[in-house]
Structure formats: C-alpha cells, structure tokens
C-alpha cells in the first residue's frame, strides 16, 4: 500500500515496488488508507507512508494501525522529507518499522524492503 497525497510520488513508489513484484493499492492520506484497509480481505504486507498529508497524517495512521491486533502483520515504512533526528525517533516510537528520507533512489526502497525480509536480498541492483 502506497500512502501519499502527491500523485507524482505515488507514481514513483508504485513503479519501484511493482518492479519488485508487489501489487499496489494507493491512498491519498491516512484516513483513506484506513478505510481501504477495512475493505480489504487480506491486509497488505507493507505500507509506504508519507508523513505530511491532509485529514490524517502518516504518524496518526501508524498509531491507528498499531492499535489494532488484526493489522499486526503489516510492515510500516515511513517515506517522508521529515528528517530531523527527533522526528524519526517519534515515528519509531509510534510503531513504524523502517524509515526512508526523501529524496530517495529506487535502490534505497529496495534495500530497506530487503532488510525487512520482504524481498530476497538477491534481487538487489
């Protein structure tokens, strides 16, 4: 699941993870993403989450997902320009598993997913 209010960024991320063999669903903010999660038979393996979005931001989304037992299996990865040390610590404390700072190269996303065991490390560039 790709959650970002920018269509351009959703497109970039979709391109990267599609090449890794993932199927992608998109949401434009945290609220839309939660609604989408409710409607899915099977939750996604991983969510790539922007921080600053209207309605519900990425941090609130992470907190909401972490509070529900049935979403335990979803790996949460922030993908955001927020890069202050303290902000990263906040996201981890809220329950995010990984963190990529924008701008990022495709390898950065692939390698973080490999660290999380979501793609085999043999598929590296």
């Amino acid at each position, binding site marked *: 699941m790709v959650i970002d209010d920018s269509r351009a960024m959703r497109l970039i991320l979709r391109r990267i993870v599609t090449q890794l063999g993932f199927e992608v669903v998109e949401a434009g903010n945290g609220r839309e993403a939660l609604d989408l999660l409710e409607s899915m038979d099977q939750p996604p393996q991983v969510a790539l989450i922007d921080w600053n979005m209207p309605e519900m931001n990425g941090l609130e989304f992470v907190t909401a997902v972490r509070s529900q037992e049935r979403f335990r299996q979803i790996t949460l990865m922030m993908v955001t320009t927020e*890069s*202050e*040390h303290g902000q*990263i*610590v906040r996201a*981890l404390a809220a329950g995010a598993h*990984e*963190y*990529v*700072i924008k*701008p*990022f*190269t495709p*390898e*950065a996303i692939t*390698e*973080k997913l*490999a*660290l999380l065991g979501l793609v085999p*490390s043999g598929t*590296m560039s």
Partner: protein
Amino acid sequence: MALTQQEFAFVSGLVRREAAIVLETGKEYLVEARLLPLARRTGTPSVSEFVARAQRERALADQIVDALTTNETSWLRDREPFSAFTDSVLPDLAERRTPVQKLRIWSAACSSGQEPYGLAMLLEESLKSSRQYEILATDISAEMLERAKTGRYSQLEVNRGLPVPMLVKYFQRAGTEWQVSESLRRNITFQKVNLAAPLPPVQPFDVVFLRNVLIYFDLETKRSVLRRIRSLMRPDGWLFLGAAETTIGIDDGFERVVAGRASAYRPRAATTAPVGATRKG
C-alpha cells in the same frame, strides 16, 4: 573555460584504464561539473589546469578516477555475510578467546567507510560490553580514506541499507548531512594500504572482510593478495569475500566453510576442528 579535446581524451582514457568506465564525447560538461570541486579544493584556478596537473601528479589522477566513478554504497544490505558475522563468527570467537582479548577486524577495502562503521555497529549491538574490539579500515585511495575518516554521510547515503534503529542510535544530523558518533569512530583506525604490494606489519586479525576487491585483479595478483592476507590472520580466523568471489582454485591455504547462509573462508588448519561451522566444498 571549456575542456579541450586533448584534456577530455586524457580524462576518458584514465577512467577507462582504471575503472573500465567509458566516457563518450559529449560528456565534457559532466567531467567539468565533477572536477570543478576538486580544482577548487586543490587551489587550482580552472578545471583545465587541474587536468594538466593530473597528467604529472598521480595523486590527482586518482582523485579524478574517484570523482567520476563513485556511487553511493550500501551499508548492510548484503544480509548473509553480516548475519553470518553476528550469528556464527562472533559466538565462535567469544568461545575461543579469553574475555580480555580484543577482537581484531580488518575491513580491507573500506571505500567511503560504510563497511567498517557498519561492522562497528554490529559489534556494539552483539558483543558483551566488556569485550573490546578494534577495526582496521584500509583502502588504496587516500581521497576515499579522508572521506571515510570524517564519518559524514549525505541523506542519500544513509538511506542505503542502513536499518533506521542504527541511524537514530549512531548518527547525529549535521546540516544537510549525518555524522557518525564518536562511540563508533574511536574503535576504527584508517590507513592507506595497497593490497597488491607487501603489507605493513600488524597484529593478526580474527576476521577479515575483503569483499568485491579480488574481481579487479588477475589470477596471479589474486593469489598473492590472498597469501598475504592469510599471513595476517589468526590460524582460526575468518575471511569474508564478495558473493562472486572465492579462494577455490586460487589459494589452497583457505578452506570454504558455511557460516549461516553465507560462505566464509578459514585457514586450512583451523577447519580440522570446526566450531560453529560445517565444512563445504
């Protein structure tokens, strides 16, 4: 001032010979953009004059190769050798060494420093706090060593295969960059070493990382490099090579062993009584 055809030909010939990278005509602007910072740093008034100096001064030619071939390298993305290091090798060494013995690790082609700092993070996370360690980080490029020593990395670099808990624990923001903490830096010594020449005398190592270096050497050089490295290893030490590299058919003094999901190499005598490792090949 634009580069002349001759100057560009010198630069493209240089990177083709040294790094097998082809710079086609038309990339003059790229050469200029990458070399301008070097010219400024060395107090040379123009890129043209910097190129002229580089034709006489080997060190400057090396800087040109670095500037035109450097890509961001990843920290710990190759999971297999690093988990073999923490899950098989360190427990093995903890058993074989007395509690006060310092573990000695050699990162033999450290490039911009991601490997030695990454190893230091793994050691900090895995070892008992009473166990001391030291890392020797060497490279053939003085420019690379200078960079590695500063411990400063761009945002793009810290995005590459560095688990975020390690980022927040061992780095601080420094302007647009990130600075490696003193707790890691104090255990690492940086030194310029040419692996293809006789090595300086040092205490033997418990673990050597020599990844993606042998591929650049011919068979004879590979053999002499491996022999020299073996002479600087403890008899029960461990060597990690790149995934596409091996000692097999090059140096019989090493035996391949399986460590976790990775292959490692150990001086042959050590494998008669393997601990924490099984034979393979």
